[in-house]
């Protein structure tokens, strides 16, 4: 006579091992992926040898911008200066020039500040002219309240 308890002890041990198969492969792939990313981003990252001035650090961008302004002050070649300034990809080039001019002035570098301010001024004039020539029917912003006829 077979007891119920005896039959419950019988187990097939090979079945769970087969079911676990996919998980250890996934674990291995995730582990490898993490190791690969650590290697590619931290240990041996890509080093760009041919970068653009837009990727320079702020100090070197300032030097580049200052050189552009000095050349403009020396040669008066506005178009070339604008093309050179564009490669720095400043969000607002006019603001970048003005802010740097103020910093140079505060540091006592008056000649550099003058060059930067001169270029900023020329750029501002150019932008105003472009705005008016491209949009001749543009009306300046109404700053005074509109008068209503009173009875």
């Amino acid at each position, binding site marked *: 006579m077979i007891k119920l308890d005896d039959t419950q002890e019988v187990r097939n041990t090979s079945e769970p091992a087969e079911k676990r198969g996919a998980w250890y492969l996934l*674990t291995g*792939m995730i582990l490898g*992926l993490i190791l690969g990313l650590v290697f590619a981003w931290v240990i041996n990252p890509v080093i760009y040898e041919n*970068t653009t001035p837009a990727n320079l650090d702020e100090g*070197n961008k300032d030097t580049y911008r200052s050189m552009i302004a000095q050349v403009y002050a*020396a*040669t008066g070649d506005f178009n070339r200066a604008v093309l050179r300034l564009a490669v720095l990809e400043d969000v607002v080039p006019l603001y970048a020039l003005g802010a740097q001019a103020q910093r140079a002035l505060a540091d006592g570098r008056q000649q550099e500040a003058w060059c930067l301010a001169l270029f900023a001024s020329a750029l501002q004039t150019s932008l105003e002219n472009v705005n008016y020539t491209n949009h001749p029917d543009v009306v300046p912003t109404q700053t005074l309240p509109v008068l209503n006829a009173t009875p």
Partner: protein
Amino acid sequence: MRRQTRRILFFVIAILVGLAAGVIYGWEVNPVQYADAAPDKLRMDYKTDVVLMAAELYHAEKDTDAAISRLAYVGDAPPLDIVEKAINFAERNNYAPEDMQLMWHLASAVDSTLTDLE
């Protein structure tokens, strides 16, 4: 035992596949972006433009020391080498003759200054 060996082999293969995928992603798909590069990493056309700017300023100021310090912006190489490389690049890319002349003048000034120092 045989099954365990096979599992270890597949585990190692899975790690290698993941490793390859991670390296490809990290190098090709989404590489680290350096926002704070140094000027010596600039592309050659930008380096040449810096040399041209130094030459334009030298033409206006006739200050060789200032020109040499401006050339140092693009790298630690000797200033004459920097100008010569820029001239070679400019020649290959058909820069305007007046720009070429400015750079030749700068090269000549730098050369004579360095020769005097020696």
